[in-house]
């Protein structure tokens, strides 16, 4: 090759290579989020909140549509029946039949626990922040039982509204998240979401049981188990409205 061409070609190729590497990691994360949520979905699940001296379990139904809209409603136990959470874009509302009020979750409460679990309101409302507010790099890939698992390190952007120093995701080749670990800014592991049971459901391979727990309090965790799931179903826009949150029209 003519010497004069080498530099321009290198300049062209190098960024592409770098970008290609980065796109890969971001793509893997995006695919995983899309896979878990689908374009639209309906899920029936149980949530078990475990503490050293008590445990409680709830059954919930959840609908999601696109990236922004979701509705979660408690079915069991009876005393919590009708409690619901609606998210649209970055906003979040809750409804409790006991007080018969729709409450918009203010920013001051976004960091607080969602329905008493180990998930924060933010975890629920802003799940797809992971895609565009972080820089993703592939740390490595390994093969477990014949399935390739990528280990991806996600570092939040400087001005991202994320407190974590980094998050490390283990994502299988078939887009199932095996593990999602949250590290503080000293690199100390703080909490971890682990998929305990991965299997076929609703035509996809998904994590059937996931457990979120703090590392320094091993006796406290929240487990979400999927009972039933359907993907790519028709959902009316009216589902994701405040009036529907208040008065369910199932």
């Amino acid at each position, binding site marked *: 090759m003519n010497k004069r061409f080498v530099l321009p070609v290198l300049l062209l190729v190098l960024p592409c290579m770098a970008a290609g590497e980065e796109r890969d990691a971001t793509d893997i994360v995006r695919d995983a989020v899309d896979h878990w949520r689908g374009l639209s979905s309906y899920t029936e699940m149980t949530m078990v909140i475990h503490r050293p001296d008590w445990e409680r379990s709830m059954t919930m139904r959840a609908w999601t549509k696109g990236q922004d809209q979701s509705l979660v409603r408690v079915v069991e136990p009876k005393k919590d029946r009708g409690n619901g959470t609606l998210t649209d874009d*970055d*906003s979040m509302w809750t409804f409790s039949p006991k007080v018969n009020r729709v409450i*918009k979750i*203010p*920013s*001051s409460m*976004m*960091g*607080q626990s969602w329905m008493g679990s180990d998930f924060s309101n933010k975890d629920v409302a802003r799940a797809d922040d992971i895609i565009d507010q972080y820089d993703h790099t592939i740390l490595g890939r390994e093969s477990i039982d014949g399935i390739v698992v990528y280990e991806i390190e996600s570092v*939040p*952007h*400087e*001005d*991202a*509204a*994320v*407190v*974590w*120093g980094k998050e490390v995701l283990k994502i299988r080749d078939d887009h199932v998240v095996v593990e999602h670990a*949250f590290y*503080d*800014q000293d690199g100390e592991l*703080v909490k971890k979401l682990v998929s305990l049971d991965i299997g076929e459901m609703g035509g996809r391979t998904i994590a059937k049981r996931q457990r979120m727990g703090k590392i320094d309090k091993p006796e406290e965790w929240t487990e979400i188990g999927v009972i039933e799931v359907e993907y790519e179903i028709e959902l009316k826009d009216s589902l994701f409205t405040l009036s529907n949150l208040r008065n369910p029209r199932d």
Partner: protein
Amino acid sequence: MRMLPVLTRLAWRYLWRNHRRTIIMVSAISVGVWSMIFMTALSRGMVDQVIEDGVSALPGHVQVHNPKFLDDPSVVNRIPIGDAELSRAFSSTDFKAWASRVRVPAVIASEYESRGVTLLGIDPVAEREFGYLSYDDVEGRFLEDADDNGIVIGRKLADKLETRVGKRVVLMSQDPDNEIADRGFRIVGLFDAEVPAFEEGNVFIGKRTAQKMLHIGDTTTEIVFLGDNYRDIEPTYDKVLASIDGSLDVSRWSEVATYLGSMLTVMDGFVLIFMVVIFLALSFGLVNTLVMAVFERVREIGLMLALGMKPSNILGQIIIESMLLLLVGLVIGNLLAVATIHPLRGGIDISVVAEGMEMMGAASVLYPRLYVSDMILANVIVLFLGFLASLSPAWRASRYEPVEAITKVG
């Protein structure tokens, strides 16, 4: 009046005839005056500090807000005038210092904790004059300009959040549409404050960074002005009132912080009452001493009257006696007070009761403040009330019938 030197000499000699009684009375007066001045200086010091800390933590002696802001401090109730227009409006005036800032409630979160705080989006250059923070004493660095991307928080807050300089925190607040406005910030500095509540409750970010985060263009929530002294802000107040849009709310610091404002007024009243109460206790001793002195000398007074001294001179002599007594006491008392307050100017460490003082918003070092006006007030009160108290024994002495008085067996 011609008699005055003679009477004074007579009075002075009488005083020292029974020197033990006089010394006891003088020391009682001295201690009384000393305690008036000393205790006043202590409480002045305490209250002044609370007020000054409070005023500097507000900060700004004269403040401009949207009328609704003080009831509901959110960005919805911000000042509708942009910074560009403000600079134009105030460029021709000569305020000692002024600044516009964003001040809204927010939540700060680290990996482990979250806390409610007051977010202050400031232009550090314009606010240097306000002096609520010494920029150089900040661990790390203070904000450099209004576009600074860092955040400066108090050390106590950092401890609570388990974070430190160099780490990131998330600040959450609400934008004018009540949508969540949040952003990550790297901590660039930690500040210390005398008042723990200030250290825990305030976080500083660049003004323009705050405006971007809250989506409010170049508007702010308050404009603050500095007067020469927090006790003397009327000229600044009038100037601000004249140069700003009438729909905005211009307030003195004493109106923004009514608690502090009324504290100042209450303190002035308290000092007066305190002094009068101490004097009332003293006056019993004084009257008693004078009555004794008169009783003791009934025959003498009778003799002087018989020799032709006018009753008014007797009256004058007793009053002069009491005044001399008080004056000696006052001089010693004042000297004593100055002598005890002066070495304590560096502050009295009261960290033993720091927790209780914190609740009042006071720091754990107490600096006594000796006001000349308080000192004068104490002296005037003692002399004036002492004069009134000595009238009755003096009157009685001047009314003696000479014959009866001379023949009185006593």
